[in-house]
């Protein structure tokens, strides 16, 4: 299977995503410049973290207008797997591929640290290798990760099992004490209604190797690879 890693001006986790796909999983990966318009040769698309267009105006607000986003929308529409991490998640929100908006962290500060997440839905291509309600540790690094939707949309997301990750304690408890940024319902990652587009603030690509202090992100990429190579065409 082949991964596309979209490079916007200001993306800075593009090399990290490339590293885990290419060197940890040994799968082909290509950087795709944001001015390109074709994603037809890829099986999965990653919108990496960073500061596309310097986060000027609003995180993701300018990047959503890049030529590649038309191709991303088509790719997702055909059922292709799209993963937006951190700034990639913000771009997916701005592009309307996922519901909701991102506010500044409640503390108004950038936060970089490991957090615990509870995996709330393992029936997606991104999470099928986790087990039900597994608690995982992943780093966050953002200033605008305070996810917000109105209450109707939030109910809808819950009903459709679109909430994939929630910030939690190490025993899986979900409450305000373990909410690092003020996100509604401690939401850390959501998918679209078809389940093929995932946006998440935590960085799975930063915890896929033992030497980096954790491997809970490995499982996410393992799920994607397994889904595409073993399940999709059956």
């Amino acid at each position: 299977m082949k991964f596309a890693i979209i490079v916007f001006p200001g993306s800075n986790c593009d090399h990290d995503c490339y590293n885990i796909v290419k060197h940890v999983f040994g799968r082909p990966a290509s950087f795709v410049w944001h001015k390109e318009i074709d994603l037809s040769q890829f099986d999965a698309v990653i919108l990496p973290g960073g500061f596309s267009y310097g986060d000027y105006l609003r995180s993701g607000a300018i990047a959503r207008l890049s030529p590649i986003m038309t191709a991303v929308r088509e790719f997702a529409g055909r059922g292709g797997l799209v993963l937006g991490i951190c700034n990639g998640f913000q771009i997916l929100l701005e592009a309307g591929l996922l519901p909701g908006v991102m506010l500044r962290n409640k503390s108004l500060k950038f936060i970089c640290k490991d957090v615990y997440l509870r995996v709330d839905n393992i029936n997606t291509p991104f999470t099928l290798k986790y087990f039900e309600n597994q608690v995982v540790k992943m780093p966050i690094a953002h200033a605008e990760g305070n996810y917000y939707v109105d209450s109707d949309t939030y109910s809808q997301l819950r009903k459709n099992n679109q909430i994939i990750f929630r910030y939690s304690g190490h025993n899986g408890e979900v409450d305000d004490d373990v909410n690092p940024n003020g996100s509604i319902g401690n939401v850390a990652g959501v998918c679209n209604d078809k389940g093929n587009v995932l946006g998440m603030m935590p960085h799975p690509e930063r915890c896929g190797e033992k030497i980096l202090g954790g491997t809970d992100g490995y499982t996410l990429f393992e799920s994607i690879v397994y889904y595409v190579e073993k399940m999709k065409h059956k």
Partner: protein
Amino acid sequence: MLSKEIIESHGFTDDEFERILKILGREPQIVELGIFSVMWSEHCSYKSSRIHLRKFPTKGDRVLQGPGENAGVIDLGDGLAAVFKMESHNHPSFIEPYQGAATGVGGILRDIFTMGARPVAILNSLRFGDIKLPRNRYLFSGVVSGIAGYGNCIGVPTVGGEIYFDEIYNNNILVNVFALGIVRKDMIFKGVASGVGNPVIYVGSKTGRDGIHGATMASDVFDETSEAKRPTVQVGDPFTEKLLLEACLEVMNKGLIIGIQDMGAAGLTSSSCEMAGRAGTGIDIHIDRTPVREAAMTPYEVMLSESQERMLIVTDPAKEKDVMDIFHKWDLDAVVIGEVTDTKKIRVINRGEIVADIPVESLTDEAPLYERSIAPPPYLEILHDLDMENLPVPPDLNNVLLTLLSSPNISSREWVFRQYDHMVRTDTVVMPGSDAAVIRIKGTNKGIAMTADCNSRYCFSDPHAGGAIAVAEAARNIVCAGGEPVGLTDCLNFGNPERPEIMWQFQQAIEGISAVCRKFNIPVISGNVSFYNETNDISIYPTPIIGMAGLIEDISRCMTHYFKKDGDIVILLGRNIEELGMSEYLREIHHKVRGVPPFLDLDLEKKVQELCLYGIRQCIIKSAHDTSEGGLAVALAECCIQAENKKNTGAVIELSDDIRVDALLFGETQSRIIITVSPERVKELEGVAVSMGTPVTVIGKVGGEKLVIRHKSAAVIDMSVDHMADAWRKAIPGYLGEEQ
């Protein structure tokens, strides 16, 4: 004819102006006056420091590039090299903390990628005044946000550093930034304008009116009017710098350029002069072709602007178009603004009219050089006098330890590094908070340990000893992480060099640093001097910050300071001595800044470090922590307090040294490392220690939930580690009024 006011406002002495008249053989034009002013400023010319800097040992087997280029380069083997340097941005950060600090990060990163290296790590050394004063809290928060804002956006992890608070920095804060990059040995680029007729290309941001005379501002003392200097502070744009970084590395990787230099202090002026100076050529600049942000900018303003995120590139005419195409792909300006000449002159041409015509050498190698007068300060005798006999031992030592752990200089720095993305690039193996940060080098088995150190109170009391200790401690920190020190960079922050006692401090510190460098065979490969850190006649403590890098051959054997397992044996490498001079304990508890710094025995230091490194490489040692501010008790507490989200560890320690208990617990004796080993390997370690001649003492065992320290069987410390951790973690947010 230039008026006397104009000449004076450019900061020249009468002698210096005479010298200009002699060089040119005529009155300077206004643009020329501006060029001389910035190039001869202390900041650019190092006119007071050059003589002394020559004393640094700068050679070594691994040195590929020593001082004199944009940054130094150290050979790492495997065809790879590390490029690193440290720089100050003190004056601008005091005037405008966010932008001052942000552009400090931007500037040092450009120095690294100008050499062809991709920056992979940032450290910073910060000094602020008393944290209890509101203005200092504003400066502290502003600087941290500025570093975070720039570093996070460009995607280079800020992996460590150090911060101290002392009222001596109330009106002169220090913001020193260290950056390190990795480059293939055969892809190192330099700032040379060679090849007569070659085009000189301006790339990056447009030039604005920000930062005009920044270098001159940084070469003067502060007074009440300093606030008005805000327009001399540059404004940073990390997004553009990210584009510039990627575009520059792309043109370099494709072999499209001959020379490259960033426009830092003194902007277009210094970059063009230095590039021509190094190559022994000249440059003609058509100033009217420079991309500008504002209409009607004069040649004077364009030459002196310190607008950020700009580079000057010299290339082959045949490759010019390819260079342009790459910069345009990244949406950056790229314009040919001049060409390399054989005139050895820097000529600035505005719409056909020559507005500056100056011999390059007069601005670089032949800039003024001063041997300033030197005299020891009068305060030393009183300062050195510490009456230990009349210094009471506090009755409650638990309380002393708690006070120290929650003091501004010892408490947790989590509030700071949590705002820095310290994990981006997925190389960070040892996170901020240990003795040294460690990053891996992808594609190899290797890692690099990095640290920045200086105890300026020691330097104030004895700059020679203080400088020496800074290097010894930096090396000790590298060794505690499992690294072998391979090179250092410095950032020498001092007061006004026109004062003999300041020059004495400077000279002494350099000698102290050099002595340890020689003993440990660690070359100085780059550095920076910041003078004039003085306000209303008060100078900062001499603060020569040492940034050091160490090589870890096998990244799987890097080390942290945390105690690892109950039952492990705690061993002290080195010796305890009765010393309290200039300690954190003396200042926090007895409110005294007195005495001499701890004694540094270089032979002992070497033996302690050798044993520690050996033990880590042989996998005997399971944790290693250097004892520094706050002494043995604070170091032991730090070993017990685990990273956030992890359960703390206790320890029981037995000490029998025949010295007063407060000195034993809180004295800052050098050359000591606390390690742990499994019980079954204690004998082995002791055996190696004997053969190396390193003093070691088994002092206790890991376990329980409390830190208990007994001195001659009496418990002198007995406290829950959770309680200590809480005080240590909540201190900085508490000082800032942000209880968590």
